[in-house]
Structures are given as C-alpha cells and as structure tokens.
C-alpha cells in the first residue's frame, strides 16, 4: 500500500476501526515513513481529545481507593514474581492454616492477600533465607471481621505504607489465638527500615481502664513494648512502630491487656502470640 492510500487510513487507525489487513498494511508502511508515523500520532491526540472533551466522571472516592489498593497489590506481586533472586523452597513456605482471605468479598482483602503473599515470598527471594523467620501459630483461625472501613482506607491511602510493607527484607509474623472471637494478627517487620506494622482483627472489646499492648519478645526473654492500641468497634487495630532489632534476637511478638497507660513489662498472660520460626 502506498503513502497516499495509507494516509487515508490514519484516522480510522487512530480510532482502532481498521480491518486487520488494512492495519497490517499501515503498520508495514509506517515503519519506514516518518510522515505517516507523525500524522498517526497526531490523529491519536485528536482521538484522545474526544475523551478529554467529555464531562469528567470521577470515581467515587471509596471505589477509587479500592481499585488503587488492588492495583498496588498486583504490582507488588508482579515485581516479586519477575525479579526473584531465589525461589522459596517448600520448607520456607507458610505452614500456617490457610488464611481466610478468599472467603471475603472485600477487594481490600484480596489486595492484602496478594501483598502478604509477596511479603512472605519476598523475604525469601531477597536472600533473607538465613534470617527468614516464619510464623507458627498457637491455634487455628477461621473467620474474622473483614469489614473495617477505617483500616481499609488508611491502608489503601497510604503509599508510604505500601513501600514499607513491600520492601526487600520484610518479614511477616502471624499471631493467632483461640477464643470466642478468634483474634488474629499479622506483623510486618521491615527490617532494613526497622519499621513494624501490626494489624489485628477480631480483638475482644477493651474493658474500661485498660489498653492493649504489643510486645517484642527477645530470645534473652527481654520484652520490649512496641506500643499501645485500642481496637475499633469492629475489633480491628493497626499500630506502627520504629525499633531496631537484629533479625536473630527476636523470639516472638505478643499482645497483652494492660492498665490504661501501659506497663513497663507485661502484667498479664498474652492472649495473642506469634513466634518467630527460624528456617
């Protein structure tokens, strides 16, 4: 097909309305014709201007945040899949009970599932094998509260958190307990950044005058407070802390109920505990 015939097709090409044979002919010609390549780009600009002339229809903020969170989770997963240094061996894969993410309809949990999968894989893939710890749980978990708008929004809105939870060397510690409401918690330990992000669900309501306190339990039995937190009415909580711990000195994380204001050392038996498991 000659230059003039191809030029007649450029508008329809930009509109993606060509027959397959015309499109092939155009592509073949445009590869060697500067003019047609440039004019096609201009036609594409014109097509784009049609969309730009329409009245803006923004996504509802909540829907936008959910889609954004889902995309970020997919991207994190994608990156982990395309750049693994080492594949996780079966021995390093989570031995914990299957997470109930899939039973939930909330896209947020799909995102979280994708992200946590990557975190687990990432810790291994980035050469953290020697240090990588995984989680063993005190008891099985089944269902938990999957609706927490505040947590959802906070997680999906915070770009910084995504990178904190997805960087190389992030480890994941799950903590479970059996009780009436089956609390469940997950700790993301970004070792290079010394950042701890703790999320928990189905926490029992606080009794008045009390608070929950999160502890880092060292191998030498020392217990370091990582902060206090209150659950939301739906029993969810999130806590972030910065604290340097060498990877081989942490034994477990634990949550206790303490008097309001917190304690220097735990005064009650932990109701939620997640032990590091050396690989």
């Amino acid at each position: 097909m000659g230059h003039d015939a191809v030029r007649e097709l450029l508008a329809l090409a930009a509109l993606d309305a060509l027959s397959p044979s015309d499109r092939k002919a155009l592509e073949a010609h445009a590869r060697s014709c500067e003019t047609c390549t440039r004019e096609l780009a201009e036609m594409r600009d014109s097509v784009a201007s049609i969309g730009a002339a329409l009245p803006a229809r923004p996504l509802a903020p909540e829907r936008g945040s959910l889609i954004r969170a889902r995309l970020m989770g997919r991207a994190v997963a994608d990156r982990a899949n395309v750049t693994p240094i080492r594949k996780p061996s079966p021995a390093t894969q989570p031995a914990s009970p299957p997470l109930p993410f899939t039973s939930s309809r909330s896209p947020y949990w799909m995102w979280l599932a994708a992200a946590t999968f990557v975190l687990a894989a990432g810790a291994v893939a980035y050469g953290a094998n020697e240090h990588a710890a995984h989680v063993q749980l005190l008891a099985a978990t089944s269902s938990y509260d999957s609706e927490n708008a505040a947590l959802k929004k906070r997680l999906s809105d915070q770009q910084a958190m995504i990178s904190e939870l997805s960087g190389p060397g992030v480890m994941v510690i799950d903590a479970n307990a059996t009780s009436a409401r089956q609390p469940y918690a997950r700790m993301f330990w970004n070792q290079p950044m010394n950042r701890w992000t703790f999320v928990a669900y189905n926490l029992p309501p606080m009794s008045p005058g009390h608070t929950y306190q999160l502890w880092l339990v060292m191998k030498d039995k020392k217990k370091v407070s990582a902060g206090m937190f209150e659950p939301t009415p739906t029993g969810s909580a999130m806590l972030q802390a910065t604290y340097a711990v060498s990877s081989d000195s942490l034994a477990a994380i634990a949550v206790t109920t303490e008097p309001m204001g917190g304690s220097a050392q735990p005064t009650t038996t932990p109701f939620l505990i997640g032990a590091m498991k050396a690989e």
Partner: protein
Amino acid sequence: MATGDEAALGALYDRYTTSIHTIAYYLLGQADEAEDAVEETFWQAWREASRYDASRGAVSTWLSTIARSRALDRQRAWRRRAEDPLDTTAQTSPDAGDRADAMAAAPDPQRDAESAERARDIAVALARLPAEQREVIELAYFAGLSQSEIAARTSLPLGTVKTRARLALEKLRAPLAQHRQLSR
C-alpha cells in the same frame, strides 16, 4: 514506571483515574464495568510501561488509547454474547454501548435517563463537528464499530467513511494544536 516502581503506578493512577474512568463510563455506561476497565487500563499500563514512547505522544494519550481498547473489548464481548443465541450469559449481559443495538432490554427509566444524558454529553463534546462527521466518530469512538460496520450502518461507501473520519479528527485536533502553541 518502566523500572517496575509501583510508586509510579500510584502516581499515574492518582493523576489520571478521573479521565480514564470518564472514558470508560461513556463507552460502557455501567459503573461496575467501567471500574473494571479502569483497573485493567492501569494494569496494562504497568505491565507495558516499557512500550510507552514519550517521543510519540503524551502519557494521557497513551493511557486513553489503552482505556478505550479495554472498554471496547468489553463492548464487543457483550455484542458477541447478544448475537449468540446459544450463549445463555446474553440474558444477563448489559446492553452493548452500541446504542443502536441496545433496544432489547426491558424498559428501565433510570438507565434510559442515564443513557440519554450520556448521549447528550457526547453530542456536546462533538458539537464542533458537522452532523455527518459526528455520526462517524460516534460509531467509531463510542460504539467501537469497524470501518466496514460503519459503512454498512450508514450506507456510505468505505471511502466516504475514511474521509469523514479524517476530516473530523483534523477538526478536533485544531484546538489541541493551538493549546500546545500557547503553552510552549
């Protein structure tokens, strides 16, 4: 972006979600379908970031091209299902964005009102075009018809369809070119 930096995906999303959703909404007319198209658009952009060539156009053009393709894929899938009497999913599929084909479903005042509003917005957006060019653009851009489908629908020779499409896009390009001149 091309290095696989998801922060760039977030920035891209924040910057362009509204314009991408606008395109998807006007092509699909269904909130959930439009949302899926938005996600697919940004996902494709993320996966194919290395194919974006800044020397060949603006990011917004590249993204809106992807958005339109993803939305048209959905439209065409509806149309295929609607045309295949053995496909039982046709019962539940939304009516195709091709408005001329969309008369089958039961009356739904709200949907009819929304679709009338969309049609009006589209007419306003293309108001600078003469009616015969606008028709070709509507069928190509919004209904996703191919050149031969447009020719059949309008009973025009293929050559006339090509000419009208070219004249329309040249006319639509003018203000954009002026804008570029001014912003230089």
